[in-house]
């Protein structure tokens, strides 16, 4: 079995998975005038946002700018205090939760693993939306879990308790759970926090693989600007609950944008590896010549 042959079967399966049975139609997710609040304090002030189908979108911004809140709103984990979120043109709040979960996956920032749960059991939980109250586990569930474990390189951990894993392993297991859900849209809230650099890059590669092979639409809230610039097709910059700029990283990321969004001086170079923007921050100290930077 060649890897390519493998992928065609994944794709074929994904196509038959789509609700109407027609060749894969891409699902769309967009926010219209979306306002989000915690305890009556508005955090996101009426944003319009469409996730480009089949692309990787990264949402960046300083702490407290509302980027995680926006993601929670898009994933219907937080009800809008104004505006709405449309999944395939229909208000996501009116759709049955389980139906949404077959199309849209969300990996929250701090997922909790129940005590003693094994990797296989946890990844298997990702199959929940595909099971009815009385539908038993079937071969397709088996296949989805096995593939999620393989793709995320966690198959050898299958029998281990999640609590015994390292941070990087654990994060891959959570991604595996999200993959087992087999959704066309996948949202991830800071999936690389607490990972070392090698693991961060590996995870981004993994998500890019997923996007390129299965055409999954991905949205990620990310702290690391340079990784975001490198791996995003579409970049959304947020500040104080509004979208300040969005577009391909090469068009959006300039020294001006970064200093407006983050309130930080910087140089923007060309990443010698990827050709994408590379942001070099400028603080008060350790600058070669503090007078001549611009």
């Amino acid at each position, binding site marked *: *079995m060649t890897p390519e042959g493998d992928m065609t079967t994944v794709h074929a399966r994904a196509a038959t998975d789509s609700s109407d049975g027609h060749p894969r139609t891409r699902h769309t997710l967009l926010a219209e005038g979306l306002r989000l609040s915690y*305890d009556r304090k508005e955090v996101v002030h009426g944003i319009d946002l469409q996730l480009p189908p089949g692309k990787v979108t990264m949402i960046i911004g300083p702490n407290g700018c509302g980027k995680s809140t926006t993601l929670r709103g898009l994933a219907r984990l937080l009800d809008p205090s104004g505006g709405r979120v449309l999944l395939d043109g229909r208000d996501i709040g009116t759709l049955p939760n389980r139906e949404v979960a077959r199309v849209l996956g969300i990996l929250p920032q701090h997922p909790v693993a129940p005590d003693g749960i094994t990797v296989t059991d946890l990844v298997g939980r990702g199959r929940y939306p595909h099971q009815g109250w009385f539908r038993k586990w079937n071969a397709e569930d088996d296949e989805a879990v096995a593939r999620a474990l393989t793709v995320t390189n966690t198959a050898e951990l299958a029998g281990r308790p999640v609590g015994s894993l390292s941070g990087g392993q654990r994060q891959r297991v959570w991604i595996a759970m999200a993959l087992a859900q087999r959704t066309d849209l996948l949202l991830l809230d800071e999936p690389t926090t607490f990972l070392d650099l090698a693991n961060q890059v590996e995870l981004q590669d993994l998500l890019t693989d997923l996007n390129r092979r299965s055409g999954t639409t991905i949205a990620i809230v990310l702290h690391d600007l340079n990784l975001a610039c490198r791996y995003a097709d579409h970049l959304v910059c947020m500040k104080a609950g509004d979208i300040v700029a969005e577009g391909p990283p090469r068009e959006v990321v300039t020294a001006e944008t970064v200093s407006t969004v983050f309130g930080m001086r910087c140089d923007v170079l060309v990443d010698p590896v990827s050709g994408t923007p590379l942001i070099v921050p400028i603080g008060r100290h350790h600058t070669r010549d503090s007078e001549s930077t611009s």
Partner: protein
Amino acid sequence: MTAAALDLARTRTRTRGRVRRVSVAGALTVAVLVVVALSLVVGAAVVSLPDVLSTLAGQGSRNTNYVVLELRLPRALAGVLVGIAFGLSGAVLQTLLHNPLASPDVIGISTGASAAAVLGIIGIGLSGPAVSGLALGGALLTALLMYAIAWRNGVSGYRLILVGIGLNSLLLSVISYFMTSARVTTAQDALLWISGSLSGRNWDQIVPLLVSLVVLVPVTLVLGRVLGMLGLGDDTARGLGVTVGRVRLGLVVAAVGLAGVATAATGPIAFIALLAGPIGRGPAKDGGPALVPSALVGALIVLVADVVAQHTPFLPNLPVGVLTGAIGAPYLLWQLARTNSGGQGG
């Protein structure tokens, strides 16, 4: 790629999990049956096992009919049923609120039932089924009050437990007040509602309990399949398609109902709900709520404790609730110390 090998490994782990679950439940069921048999045999007069069996088959003498069918069987059956109810109730609430302290006897649900019953007996002069009904009402009302006080744009498990512990103390003082104002004979009746006892339980209490459990247990077990999903945290569970709010409300109502009907039948047998869950989850270790083992463990603890209580030297008529209280209190203290050192409060 080793997909086939992987599938095989997976199937094996899952089969092993299932085999384990079935064998744990089987072993516990056998243990419960053995103790039930034991409790039918031993007592003031020993009835031999063959005699017990023939009596159960409807061919007993007048003597064994009375001892086995009228005295011992209702008592054992009451023990099994309240054990199941308390065990399930505790396991559900503990999993739901992510806290081993969240059992109905710690957070005031059982005490609510007791307080209502004591109020009925001493304050209003009720007796019989009316008291049981009042006890159930008391449990539900306590839960409602707890929810209302703990509500802040949703309910966090931690706040619910603290409010519950507060309500528990309040209700205990209500009970004490009524007890001090009661005549000795009425106080004797009311005592059942404080310590919990299987003594003198007959078909009048068992039939309503059985009917309630026939409804509540299947509902709890079906909702319990989703309970495992709630262990992933609200956001993840909702993201996977669980209607978190509705499922949680359903489970809380079922768990409160279970604790309420059990308390209405036998009084609050202390700490069964607290102990059954952790013991029941012990052998499974799959991160699931292990409802069936917890229910069976509940039944087993009640039965064993009652057999022991009945035959404790120097202490005739020791109520089973006093004995389980003595076992459970050290566990509660240990759990309090442990969760505090783990920084989870409690």
